[in-house]
């Protein structure tokens, strides 16, 4: 079980309020991602749930029980840290065994769980090595192994992939998702990378300045961002945001058009522009088109085989039904 409820949780460091009163419920078995720019309070929120920081006010309930004043050791949660935080003086086996040793689990049960975790995480050959002798990906797996053996009510991940290179990151993303499907345990995952959020989450919590901007499934957030911040944060490359005449025409203060919702033509269309930088990904190409009379270029996704040279004249047309409208406060107009 692992249902976590935050009830008007507030956190201040001295005079500075980093998290104004906030409500959030995380259902049992859910994979929830906290995402936002650095300094948005997502890590602090995770540390509050872990018990590594005190809440200033409010209540944290785990499976219905008040855990607000419970020390981290007693909350039954496991955490995977950004730096992995392995104990450098212990072998991999001892690292994984440590939480069980603290819990006083019998030795043979410890061994059974270590073997099982090592097998699941491909660590069997490395059990007697020290963390210093492992690669980044292996260390990450040891940290996960250490979390699994406790059979926690929920896993907490604090930007666990940010120290890995791009290729490994993708692999670990799949492994963690796979792990979640297999264990069916609540996972809370903090990241600043919206790709990680989109690909892994059941539910994304977008944070800015300690405030929850929107909670929803990845596709909900993609289809109907509640405000300009979420619209700009979710989706890659970023949504094009237009103000002024184009927005006014559609009865909004700002309109947002995703690069994949603009079609391009060499002959005619709504806007005329010249091609600037082209980013070729192979399957797709992102063109930065300078529209006539506009200061910022518009990003457009085109097929990878589409050929356009710097300086070419093109016409763009947006799919009207995919245009997001926002009012002067930045809120979505339904």
């Amino acid at each position: 079980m692992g249902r976590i409820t935050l009830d008007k949780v507030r956190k201040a460091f001295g005079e500075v309020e980093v998290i104004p009163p906030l409500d959030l419920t995380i259902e049992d078995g859910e994979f929830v991602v906290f995402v936002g720019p650095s300094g948005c309070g997502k890590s602090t929120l995770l540390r509050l749930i872990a018990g590594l920081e005190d809440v200033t006010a409010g209540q944290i309930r785990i499976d219905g029980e008040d855990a607000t004043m419970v020390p981290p050791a007693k909350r039954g949660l496991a955490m995977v840290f950004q730096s992995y935080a392995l104990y450098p003086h212990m072998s991999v086996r001892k690292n994984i065994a440590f939480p069980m040793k603290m819990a006083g689990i019998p030795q043979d049960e410890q061994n059974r769980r270590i073997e099982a975790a090592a097998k699941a995480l491909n660590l069997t050959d490395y059990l007697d090595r020290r963390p210093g002798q492992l690669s980044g990906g292996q260390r990450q797996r040891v940290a996960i192994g250490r979390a699994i053996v406790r059979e926690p009510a929920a896993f907490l991940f604090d930007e666990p992939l940010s120290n890995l290179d791009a290729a490994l990151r993708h692999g670990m993303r799949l492994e963690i998702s796979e792990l979640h499907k297999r264990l069916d345990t609540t996972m809370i995952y903090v990241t600043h990378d919206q790709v990680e959020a989109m690909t892994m989450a059941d539910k994304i919590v977008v944070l800015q300045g300690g405030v929850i901007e929107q909670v929803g499934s990845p596709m909900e957030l993609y289809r109907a961002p509640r405000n300009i911040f979420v619209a700009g944060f979710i989706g890659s490359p970023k949504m094009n945001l237009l103000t002024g005449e184009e927005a006014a025409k559609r009865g909004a203060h700002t309109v947002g058009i995703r690069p994949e919702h603009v079609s391009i033509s060499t002959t005619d269309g709504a806007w005329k522009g010249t091609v600037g930088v082209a980013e070729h990904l192979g399957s797709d190409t992102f063109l930065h088109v300078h529209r006539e009379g506009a200061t910022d270029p518009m990003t457009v996704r085109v097929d990878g085989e589409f050929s356009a040279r710097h300086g070419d004249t093109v016409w763009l047309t947006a799919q009207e039904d995919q245009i997001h409208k926002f009012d002067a406060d930045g809120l979505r107009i339904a």
Partner: protein
Amino acid sequence: MARAVSNPRKALNTAIAWGIGLLIFFPILWTILTSFKTEAEAIANPPVFLAFDWTLENYSVVQERSNYMRFLWNSVFIAGGSTLLGVIIAVPAAWSMAFVPSKRTKDILLWMLSTKMLPAVGVLYPIYLLCIQLGVLDNRYALVVILMLINLPIIVWMLYTYFKEIPGEILEAARMDGAGLKEEILYVLTPMAVPGIASTLLLNFILAWNEAFWTLNLTAVDAAPLTAFIASYSSPEGLFFAKLSAASTMAIAPILILGWFSQKQLVRGLTFGAVK
């Protein structure tokens, strides 16, 4: 990256450096050599360097006449005791300051440092008087406590700078893994800080061993360590160079060896982490 340096240049450096090094080391070398000479050879003019009859006689005379072993034991007891006691008291304090810093941590650290700067002579009489009143003048345990107090700020500081280098996330991981405060310090912090704790022990043992204000002023016979033993050679035995050398060699040899192991840590310890 070091660049290749021409060999003649390197040879010149080597010659100058070795020359100066040996010059600085010479008094120690000379003392050690003299300790193996007879008294006549020790004052011979011109001095003899190596071509003398090597003898161990001085060492046995020194031991017989002044019971060197008792002074040695006092030195070991006082230096070792004060260092151990200091580390036991300092580890929890340094843990607190390194991992649970508050607004006052910096002030407390600096205040501790400031107690170290109190000139000993300024409080000589009060301590002397307290020792008499408590009946612990010339008492080994009293010196253990006093030298511990003198070095406690350095011990706290050294441990603090070493602990600071241990990532806090690892201790938090231990907390998440179910470790209480005791387990956190015992199973995670201490083993990780072993090198730092060892160098702290080493440097403070050396400092306590060589301390020569309180050990000279608060001991007479029973608790006198090697510093006092040597000071007693001041006159007239000091004119017996060979025996003086033997006694000196025995007093500095153990610490010289320990000291060579600790030179790296010495810098950090004595500059309170300001130079690493």
